[in-house]
């Protein structure tokens, strides 16, 4: 099967919650070359784009939906946006749910938008990630 507009609204929740550790935050900050002290020490917050790392666990579930027929090696990340209610911080236990919001087709290319809600496991909102992917079904 292939993805189409009837699949807008499908939701995918990451398997298990994500426990944010301060050493993981520091490792991520180091990997993006960001020495900001807010990302270090006993009680750090995470760099803004760390939200994508947590959200990608919900994306994995979306990509795993065989009915959509998506392949990672045919996907290009076209656009990305985050809205923050508050920063992610060490000690957070985060649930991620991705929902397909738009599907547009142009020949073999499918433009897919999905929104990923990051909340604490108690339901407190943290951030929303909006992603645009292009999936190309043409054989190159």
């Amino acid at each position, binding site marked *: 099967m292939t993805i189409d507009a009837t699949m807008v609204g499908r939701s995918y929740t990451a398997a298990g919650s994500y426990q944010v550790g301060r050493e993981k935050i520091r490792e*991520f900050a*180091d990997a993006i070359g960001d020495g900001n002290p807010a990302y270090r020490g006993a009680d750090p*917050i995470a*760099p*803004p*784009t760390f939200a994508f790392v947590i959200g990608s666990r919900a994306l994995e579930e979306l990509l795993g939906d065989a009915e959509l027929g998506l392949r990672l090696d045919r996907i*290009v990340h076209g*656009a990305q946006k985050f809205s923050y209610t508050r920063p992610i911080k060490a000690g957070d236990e985060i649930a991620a749910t991705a929902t397909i919001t738009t599907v547009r087709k142009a020949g073999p290319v499918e433009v897919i938008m999905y929104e990923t809600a990051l909340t604490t496991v108690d339901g407190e909102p943290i951030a929303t990630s909006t992603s645009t992917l292009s999936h190309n079904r043409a054989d*190159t």
Partner: protein
Amino acid sequence: MSLAGTELPPLTVTFKRDDLVRYAGASGDFNSIHWSDRMAAALGLPGVIAHGMLTMASAVRVVTDWLDDPADLVEYGVRFTKPVVVPDDDKGANVTFSATVGKVADGLAEIDITAVAGEEKVLGRAKAVVRVR
């Protein structure tokens, strides 16, 4: 004091292959186009390219370095317009980020960010919204 029109201190970063490998490990994005010339070529790319999310993470440093507290970032979005090709050498690829404060209203400031590698803009419509006091 008017913030609108303020230019933030620019930032140039260099991505080398080991930076991409480090980002792959830290982010969990092991897509082979970010480390294998063979796989990048098979997909028609000019070479191994940086993770778009690494470029996005670097770009917002211009904003969070300028803020007293990065927690004041409310919104941040980009379009990935051109890939950043990272050669397998000691020089890597340079990307220069700059940013200007635009509209300021209701305690929020919009900041427009540009990202240039070589002669090309690698991000489009890159914008942050931050709380200002």
